[in-house]
């Protein structure tokens, strides 16, 4: 499983983000200070942001030739973006029901299925967003600051869930964070965004 970005140029508000990298680990951490374009890179990989040029490939598939809906990228954005008008069950099934029982068990969200998402606690929202991404049978998971907005004991707990997802599901993850310590327990490879022009 290898994700490659070749001569990738993503136009941002104040500069062009250029990334050429090969990522082939189960968990690749993407570091960079805020404003370095980390979220924009994930958006570009997911097909939500146009490229100026370059190519994104996953194994033999040229992702950058596909629309977002055909890329099969599971995206857990920083704000989770759970659909506020749908229940937990309808949220997680939105993209499919692949491996549902197992995902629900691993992330321990079975008791939340009938609840609305707006009443969930921060850690629960992160787990539901993870489940929604996993049920769509993604070839790659994008995690944007998955521990942001959580207090310390909760951060450890959500990190344990992320490690379980890493070990139980055969889906490589790109893990974006500004905090190097945060991913010490999970990262296997590091890409640093910097050298901003």
């Amino acid at each position, binding site marked *: 499983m290898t994700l490659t970005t070749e001569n990738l140029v993503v136009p941002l508000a104040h500069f062009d983000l250029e990334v050429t990298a090969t990522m082939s680990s189960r968990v690749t951490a993407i570091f960079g200070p805020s404003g370095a374009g980390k979220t924009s890179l994930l958006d570009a990989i997911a097909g*939500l942001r146009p490229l100026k040029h370059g190519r994104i490939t996953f194994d033999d598939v040229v992702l950058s030739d596909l629309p*977002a*809906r055909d890329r*099969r990228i599971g995206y857990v954005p920083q704000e989770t*973006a759970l*659909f506020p008008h749908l229940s937990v069950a309808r949220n997680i099934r*939105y*993209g*499919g029901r692949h491996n549902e029982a197992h995902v629900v068990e691993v992330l321990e969200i079975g008791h939340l299925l009938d609840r609305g998402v707006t009443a969930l606690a921060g850690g629960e929202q992160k787990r539901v967003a993870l489940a929604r991404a996993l049920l*769509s049978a993604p070839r790659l998971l994008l995690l944007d600051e998955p521990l942001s907005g959580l207090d310390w004991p909760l951060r450890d707990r959500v990190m344990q869930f992320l490690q379980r997802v890493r070990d139980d599901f055969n889906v490589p993850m790109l893990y974006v964070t500004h905090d190097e310590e945060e991913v010490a327990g999970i990262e296997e490879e590091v890409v640093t965004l910097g050298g901003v022009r």
Partner: protein
Amino acid sequence: MTDASIIWFTVRMAALATTLLIPPALALAWLLARGTWRGKSVIETLVALPLVMPPVATGLILLKLVPHGVVFTWRAVVVAMMVMSSPFIVRAARVAFENVNPRYEQIARTLGAHEPRVFFTVTLPLALRGIAGGVVLGFARALGEFGATILVAGNIPGRTTTLAVAIYDRVQLGHDRAAWHLVAAGVIVAFAAIWLSEKSTRLCT
């Protein structure tokens, strides 16, 4: 013609006009909210025009645009009501669509949803409350429509006479008491319509 039949006719016409207006108004509102295209500001201005022009002027324009077979029929009543209430529905729906965080739509796409599914399962439900508000206003505007209606549909008792036209007609003829009956009935209908829709909006959100 009885008061009840005038009111029933007006309510039916306003409901029909609003229902016919909703699909094109939502489509246009969505294009205005999400799209960037040439001529957008021209269309925006055109949509707002019935708000600021004298309704009689709009009626005169409609008289030139509407086919001959339609003028002075109940269809002309519906056309006049649709035109006059369109700004309320389009503008409310546009704001409602703009207030939907595009992130939800983007994430729906990453989950494999094609555009119609994104619209009907994410955008529309999240915008529903604002749209409902606009539809109520549009319906209320249609109920009270006078200026455009009288020019393009006239005042043919039993065929095109709406509530507002009938009130005017009775006042002109010096039948003030009969006019006041209609005013009272009109107030009750408008009150009931708005109260019901407020209630249903609260239920569905």
